[in-house]
């Protein structure tokens, strides 16, 4: 059961990355903001990189699940990534409480679960699924 939850949280983070990226066609009218310069010209691309971050975070968790026992170095790196993702997600929701969608709540649940499972894998290496 716990192993299944571990896998679901990693896949959940990864798949929500796709949904996040496809959201740019819904939330942005222009792919490049007209009449702007510097970073103000690129909001769509930075929105998209949020989805890429979720792919990389979910990918790290999947690597931890499959190779965490043979390549122990994956576990601390995944833990660092998960902690940063959780802090970022909380910051995102505090910054924009009016935009607290069910998907964002679900993502936070997956990220917290993935963090807990990674801490578990770090503390009890032999219990980590191979």
């Amino acid at each position, binding site marked *: 059961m716990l192993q299944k939850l571990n896998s679901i949280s990693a896949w959940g983070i990864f798949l929500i990355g796709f949904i996040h990226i496809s*959201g740019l066609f819904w*939330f*942005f009218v222009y792919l*490049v903001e007209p009449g702007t*310069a*510097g*970073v*103000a*010209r*690129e*909001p769509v*691309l*930075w*929105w*998209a*990189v*949020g989805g*890429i*971050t979720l*792919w*990389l*975070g979910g*990918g*790290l968790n999947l*690597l931890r699940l*499959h*190779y965490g026992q*043979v*390549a122990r*170095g*994956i576990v601390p*790196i995944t833990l*660092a*990534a998960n902690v*940063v*993702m959780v802090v*970022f997600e909380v*910051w*995102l929701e505090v*910054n*924009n409480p*009016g*935009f607290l969608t069910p998907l964002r709540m679900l993502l936070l649940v997956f990220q917290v679960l993935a963090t807990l499972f990674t801490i578990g894998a770090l503390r009890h290496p032999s219990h980590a699924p191979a």
Partner: protein
Amino acid sequence: MNKLDRLFVWMLLLLGIAHILSTFYLFQPLAEPGSEAAKREPALWYFSGGVSLCMCAGLNSIRIRYGRAVTPLAWVSLLATVIMLYHLFLVLTVQLLVDWKFLLLLRGPLVVALGGALWANLRFVRGAR
């Protein structure tokens, strides 16, 4: 060769941290007053760009350490580097002919780091086969 590979990983990590820190300089205020939904979050998504660079550096360091023994790690690292490089290409395209100083100063080192990491990944994958 290994030293050069590690150098690109460190460059990626440090540029990712610099990218994260630059959020607080480039976006004032962090959330545009009166804005809502996705329009209220550009600073945070810019911040996540730096996080993704750090994660890419993490995947590359995993490849260097374990890629010979566990080949799929090398392929995941290569894929992550290609995706980040493609994103950088899009950013460069958006800024091209508009703000070349901004482009060269901030994104020039990233081109070197990600381009170098791609080269190192390709060499690694060819060597592993």
